[in-house]
């Protein structure tokens, strides 16, 4: 019995360690307060300077994204890391595993605030869920910067993101051009709750409705950005409306999913595909012309500008309330362009 107990305990510990590994992004955040204490212990004279950018002590910025594992977030993180190195701040970057886990994100925010950051940069899954917490943080003098999906306007001092309505409209212009101004379109979206995702679709639909009377949007479905589900969605959409000539997809998962679905249904030649974001699979299909083209944001620049904006605010400088980090259309003809290529990630 004792032996069994020992084995059980060992396994629990191993499991605990493994679970810890799974959410490794939390670890730096946890070790933060210890380091801060160290710093203040070494320099007690500086302890009363609450100015975040005080010399000798690296200010800490907590960054919380909608997700973590997706390559987009990794690209944002790389930009943020770069800015942190350039500007001499310490950052942590976290995000829940799925872009629907509101509760997990709220926990991450609370934990991060417990570590006394100078600024919080956030892309909220649900504005309402974090509004109260952010207001409180703001009251304590913590700077709040929204990025990507951002946070509520009342809670943040600035937002660095792609203008998603404009990005959707840009996609619509190119879709209309591909169709010659006439035809039927289906939409495979990835989320009906994330503001950003909704705006990509709304911007697209508004542009079509306003400027292209001969183009009709016949179906609009959502596949959670899951590659397999989006493939099924695209296939059943084609089954219901065989005369769809173009499918617009609102993120990488939706795009590659729809691509796989069309490939399986042998419809790649008949249906033009317009995507969003990028990945190795998307780049290859765009290069070969199987996907007509896509909109890319500038995730690296977004990460960089977000940290830069936070540091400016911490230093008492004034910033614009909305900083557009830009978006571009790319297809086989311009994807190797030195302006575009660095924005496309694998």
């Amino acid at each position: 019995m004792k032996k069994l107990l020992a084995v059980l305990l060992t396994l629990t510990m191993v499991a605990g360690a493994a679970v810890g590994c799974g959410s490794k992004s939390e670890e730096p955040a946890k070790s933060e307060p210890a380091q801060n204490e160290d710093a203040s212990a070494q320099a007690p004279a500086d302890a009363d300077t609450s100015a975040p950018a005080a010399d000798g002590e690296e200010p800490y910025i907590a960054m919380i994204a909608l997700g973590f594992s997706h390559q987009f977030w990794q690209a944002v993180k790389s930009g943020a890391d770069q800015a942190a190195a350039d500007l001499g701040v310490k950052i942590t970057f976290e995000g829940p595993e799925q872009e629907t886990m509101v509760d997990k994100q709220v926990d991450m925010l609370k934990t991060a605030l417990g570590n006394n950051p100078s600024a919080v940069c956030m892309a909220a899954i649900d504005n309402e869920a974090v509004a109260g917490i952010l207001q409180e943080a703001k009251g304590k003098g913590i700077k709040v910067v929204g990025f990507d999906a951002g946070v509520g306007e009342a809670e943040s001092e600035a937002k660095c993101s792609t203008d998603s309505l404009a990005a959707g409209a840009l996609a619509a212009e190119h879709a209309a051009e591909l169709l010659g101004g006439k035809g039927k379109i289906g939409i495979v979206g990835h989320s009906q709750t994330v503001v950003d995702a909704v705006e990509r679709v709304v911007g697209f639909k508004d542009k079509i409705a306003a400027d292209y009377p001969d183009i009709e949007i016949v179906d609009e479905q959502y596949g959670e950005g899951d590659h397999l589900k989006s493939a099924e969605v695209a296939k059943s959409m084609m089954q219901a409306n065989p005369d769809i000539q173009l499918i617009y997809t609102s993120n990488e998962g939706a795009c590659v999913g729809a691509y796989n679905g069309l490939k399986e249904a042998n419809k790649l030649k008949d249906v033009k595909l317009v995507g969003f974001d990028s990945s190795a699979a998307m780049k290859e299909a765009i290069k070969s012309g199987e996907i007509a083209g896509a909109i890319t944001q500038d995730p690296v620049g977004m990460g960089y500008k977000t940290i830069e904006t936070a540091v400016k605010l911490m230093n008492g400088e004034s910033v614009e309330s909305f900083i557009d980090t830009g978006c571009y259309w790319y297809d086989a003809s311009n994807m190797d362009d030195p302006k575009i290529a660095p924005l496309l990630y694998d």
Partner: protein
Amino acid sequence: MKVKSLLKNKDVSHKLIILATFFLLVIFFSIMKPSYASYDNIMTILLATCVNGLLALGCSFVIITGGIDISVGTVMTFSCVMSGTAFTVWHFPIWLAILFGFLVGTLCGAINGFAVAKMMLPPFIATMAMQMITKGLSLVVSGIKPVYFTGADGYQNIAIGEFLGIPGFYNAIIILVIAAIVAHILFSRILIGRYDLAIGSNEEAARLSGIKVNQWKIGIYALCGLFCGVAGLVMSSRLNSAQPQLGPGYELEAIAAAVIGGNSLTGGEGSIVGTLIGALIISSLTNGLRIMAVSTEIQSAIVGLVLALAVFFDQMRRKKG
């Protein structure tokens, strides 16, 4: 007379009920949208059943013991990530990489079984731990990037190549059919199936009558892991890549299929054919709702309703029986 006695047989009557449900669904959608019953769409539905069907088959064995496996989705992902890593990083030949993926799945399952049988963890906890472990490891091993199989010529054909050149008839469907036949034989003709039922109906009685319950449990969970490995092959072949962040959520759909198929969560009752029909019901329902352009949020609500009704009718039937 014969029909009546057939209906009295519990197993058969349940299968008939779910089969009837399935056909009613198909007829309903075909009337609403004639293109639903087209050859292409039927193949689409069958293909959409494959991944979930394989996971549900594995799950069934575990559910019949009175256990549960909520790690099937992430074990599937982990095994194809490992298979992809073996191929792209360690340069295994592709067939060996595929077998390696199966081995990883089986091993994860065996560890689940060990935790349940020998370490006496409740199945929900043991497999939840495995779910978290494999989710984390998939991300670590892949570096949070998809693992592409583009270097293996014809890898995509494993799932979406056409079987014997029949247009639209995908290999994945054959993989599911073969897996189902194997599962059915294991379940109804070989000891493991009988012991499976015995453990589920009364574990203590099974132990007292000399069945090595612990060993069989490990075997049954390992078998479930193997099915996850096969599902991982189909999944990664369809996507031509292993997507490390997929997986969570798939277990619920698999358990739903097993439950709609009449596998009792308290164990001791169930069938492979039922599970297969359960998986078919889910995919034909989702496909039909999509074709009718029902909005995504309502689709989810309807599938939930069907799940509740299926279990409700099953309970009613049991009370009567």
